């Protein structure tokens, strides 16, 4: 396929060239964002490549095409390395997803790479991509369709009903399905299973027992694959994952038909959408957990599971990358750490880097049994064999945290924690009547801030009351924080963000721990980020909306929010910069200008009509 045909095939309206020959120069591109290409050249190829043959882009995807006359005439490693260089430059230049393509101009052979990390070698080559596709096709490959997510949500709803009619307790459902999913992904056989004799005991095993045992042995195998995991940790995890769930009476009494039916449903309706090789899969998987947990959450209205898109936004706001060492000290079902892992992976370019990330860069702590099981499963499904999630109270893990040399904390602490979940040093100061955390979760943040290095950034979700701060303890912690750290930004977030879970209204605060607020002496960024373009759907929670072409409205909104924050732009109705102290309210609402140019006669007319309709309704009194 010649150059011209390739451009036409992918879509000339996405084609970007910035030299006379239409080639794309990374020297110029990087210079335009204030970076020097030399910092990104490794010097391990004889030639330092700068000009990419053909580049396509839109606001979220870049396609890089390098043409070669005939692959057989080149050394494979060499041209792959060349493309890898371009991928590295692209990562430095934009934060878009990348599809990297090597194409023959004299022949028709095409090699394609995309997805997490984009490692250009034989192992990571997409073997089923053998032709050039359109830009839109590649977009779908990389992002998945919003409709797919809604399909998964629908499937989860049906699955929930199935489990309900099979008599599986609500509390078990999420963990049980997670366990099944993990087993199915790792080659569980469940069809045509017949009763056998247990080789260990000689007793006969019914087919349902055989399936359950198969699941158990897969889990055990997964956990032992990772080398340096301590036996104790493994035993603990197994007991949470296996025995608490699989040995529960509700599961043990399921018939073979019921188990087979559930597994078949998961296998055909959920597994196909979950592919941890590309990022779309990550999104879907996380969605699965948050959606499923909605049903569990009903029994505990205080649990505020962070929606995945907000995790994504926060992770991107603090700029998680391959050098990040991320901690969520109250990780719940693991939404933040899974999202952070995805973002770190996206920035990697070699398998060794990816391994290192999994082993040494993502950490979670969870106190509550059920949530701990979920986060472990969640991480395992995402290929984290080591699973640096520990079950403990964060307040007992000061040393563990200090050892990890964390540089980013993402967290959503409990807002109304009872005494036993709080810092024991802090609860000592409570009077005897106090039952719930009067700091509204703030003391978790302050404690973490004291136990991570000063190079660290913290992005935390807290209830609005914590930002308004008119009660004694919240005020105290606001002061404590600013006496030591800088308040970088606060985002007001959608009112019903946790629907149908907790009804709390949350905001996201970002702290920079390097110096105290007064000394930093800078304006804090306040975002009024209330409209995330999600809508409530009965029984499904909040779902993403699309435009007519099926593009997600959220992705555009997220890009806009990130742009406002990173470039500190003030837009009436969206953002404002303001110098604040601990005495002030930390919310955009308090400082934002109302844009009076948007006031119209219609506003007055509506007021009058409302008033008159009331007059008529009340009989004109």
């Amino acid at each position, binding site marked *: 396929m010649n150059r011209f045909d390739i451009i036409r095939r992918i879509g000339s309206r996405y084609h970007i060239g910035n030299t006379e020959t239409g080639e794309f120069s990374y020297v110029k591109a990087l210079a335009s964002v204030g970076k020097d290409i030399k910092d990104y050249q490794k010097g391990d190829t004889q030639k330092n490549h700068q000009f990419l043959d053909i580049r396509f882009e839109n606001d979220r995807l870049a396609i890089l095409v390098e043409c070669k006359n005939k692959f057989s005439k080149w050394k494979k490693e060499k041209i792959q390395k060349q493309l890898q260089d371009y991928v590295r430059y692209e990562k430095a230049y934009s934060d878009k997803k990348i599809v990297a393509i090597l194409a023959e101009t004299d022949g028709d052979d095409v090699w394609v790479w995309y997805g997490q990390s984009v490692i250009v070698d034989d192992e990571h080559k997409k073997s089923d991509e053998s032709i050039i596709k359109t830009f839109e096709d590649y977009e779908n490959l990389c992002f998945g369709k919003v409709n797919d997510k809604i399909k998964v949500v629908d499937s989860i709803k049906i699955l929930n009903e199935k489990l309900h009619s099979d008599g599986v307790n609500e509390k078990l459902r999420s963990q049980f399905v997670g366990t099944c999913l993990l087993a199915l992904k790792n080659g569980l056989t469940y069809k045509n299973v017949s009763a056998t004799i247990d080789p260990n005991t000689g007793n006969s095993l019914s087919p349902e027992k055989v399936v359950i045992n198969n699941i158990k042995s897969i889990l055990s195998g997964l956990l032992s694959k990772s080398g340096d995991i301590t036996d104790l940790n493994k035993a603990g995890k197994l007991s949470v994952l296996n025995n608490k769930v699989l040995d529960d009476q509700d599961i043990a009494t399921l018939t073979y038909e019921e188990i087979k039916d559930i597994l078949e449903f998961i296998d055909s309706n959920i597994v196909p959408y979950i592919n941890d090789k590309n990022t779309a899969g990550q999104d879907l998987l996380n969605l699965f957990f948050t959606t499923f947990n909605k049903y569990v959450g009903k029994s505990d209205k205080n649990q505020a599971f962070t929606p995945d898109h907000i995790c994504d936004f926060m992770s991107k706001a603090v700029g998680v990358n391959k050098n990040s060492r991320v901690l969520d000290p109250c990780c719940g079902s693991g939404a933040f750490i899974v999202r952070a892992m995805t973002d770190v992976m996206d920035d990697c370019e070699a398998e060794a880097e990816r391994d290192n990330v999994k082993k040494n860069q993502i950490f979670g702590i969870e106190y509550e049994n059920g949530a701990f099981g979920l986060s472990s499963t969640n991480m395992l499904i995402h290929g984290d064999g080591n699973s640096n999630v520990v079950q403990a109270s964060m307040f007992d893990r000061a040393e563990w945290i200090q050892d990890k040399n964390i540089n980013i904390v993402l967290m959503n602490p409990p807002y109304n924690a009872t005494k036993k979940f709080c810092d024991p040093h802090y609860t000592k100061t409570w009077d005897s009547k106090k039952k719930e955390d009067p700091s509204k979760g703030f003391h978790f943040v302050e404690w973490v801030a004291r136990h991570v290095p000063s190079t660290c950034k913290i992005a935390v979700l807290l209830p609005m009351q914590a930002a*308004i701060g008119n009660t004694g303890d919240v005020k105290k912690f606001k002061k404590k924080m600013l006496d030591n750290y800088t308040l970088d930004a606060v985002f007001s977030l959608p009112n019903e963000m946790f629907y149908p879970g907790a009804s709390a209204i949350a905001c996201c605060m970002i702290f920079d721990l390097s110096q105290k607020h007064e000394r930093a002496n800078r304006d804090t960024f306040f975002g009024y980020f209330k409209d995330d373009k999600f809508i409530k*759907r009965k029984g499904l929670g909040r779902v993403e909306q699309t435009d007519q072409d099926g593009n997600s409205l959220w992705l555009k909104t997220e890009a806009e929010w990130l742009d406002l924050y990173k470039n500190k732009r003030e837009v009436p109705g969206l953002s404002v910069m303001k110098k604040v102290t601990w005495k002030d309210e930390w*919310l955009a609402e308090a400082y934002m200008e*109302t844009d009076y140019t948007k*006031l119209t006669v219609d506003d007055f007319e509506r*007021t009058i009509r409302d*008033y008159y309709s009331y007059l*008529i309704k009340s009989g004109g009194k």
Partner: protein
Amino acid sequence: MLNTSKWKNFNLEKLFEISAGIYHYSDEYDIGDTPYISASNENNGIQQRINLEPEFAGNCIVTGKVGCTTFYQSEDFCATSDVNIFRPKNFELNRKIGLFITAIINFSENYKWNYGRQCRVGDSKKINIKLPAKMLNNEYIIDPEKIFSSEGYIPDFDFINEFMGNVENAERESKSSIRDSLKTINTSGDKSLGIIMENWKDFYLHKLFKTRMGNGIDAVATTNYNPKYNYVSRDSNGNGVVGFVDEIEGEDPFPAGTMSLALGGSFLGSCFIQKEPFYTAQNVGILQEKEPLSIYSKLFITTLIRNECKVKYQAFGRELNSHFRKDFTIKLPIKMDGLKFAYDENKTYSDDGYMPDWEWIENYVKKLPYADKLLNLTVLKR
């Protein structure tokens, strides 16, 4: 167009005396006439009418602390502690100025407040709003005593009065001004209007109308890129219309003039005459006339249907789905022929040959307040 570029900031505490309402427990009162204002954002903030003596005089502005939802109150009232009451300090408040300021506060404050961030008295005092300021020969008039603003600007109340008068009285596409809508030639003096129930007989709803289920379209399945039809659900507000949606292939909208009936849910029995073609959500019934009926007759029937539902049917219990096409009845006055009832051989409306006295019904409704306004609202058939 509205040019606000010369408007000036005024602090609400400078303009108003601001105080909070007084909460009353539900066992302190019964149903009555006094408006009890809460932080509700509907019905002019009136949560319900109670039988306590009004504690606050009317002609003032109230805001609810949850969303700073603002209303102008003309009646004397009671108010919960979730309400802030604004009484003018140095100027005369009237309906026009009250509604103008109401519109401005709603415009500039509503989005800043919510359940997690409530607007209490202290917060209200800090609010600044922009108002037109008094000018002379293109110069602001500065009040040396600085009564209304710390810079000495004076709100231009004359402009406000004139502006709101224009909005109220302007002729609109609907052929009359908003102000006109308040006028009715029917007085509500005689409430009995001579209803004699003796001659009323039971009629099956399915004999009076062609009854059927609505489209049953799930809200999830609706989109609104190029909206064409109303989407009617089981709501008691806004004529049951909850959305404006795209055409859906394979679904026929019901024509204007058709009546919708909420078969279940909290607003069971809500029955409306639809003015535009529409689709319906689940559990919405459809009533279509057998022969042309006037809007007066239909309104009469919707009232009786609601009345019937109050006692015999129960939301989330005995819902209408299985009844409205089978055994749901309402009593209607029947047509008389001298002392005997007029017998309908076709038995169109009743197996006993009764006929509703449509003429009487129409005349009855026409005499009610605001019924004269219905003349302009003849339902269009499409």
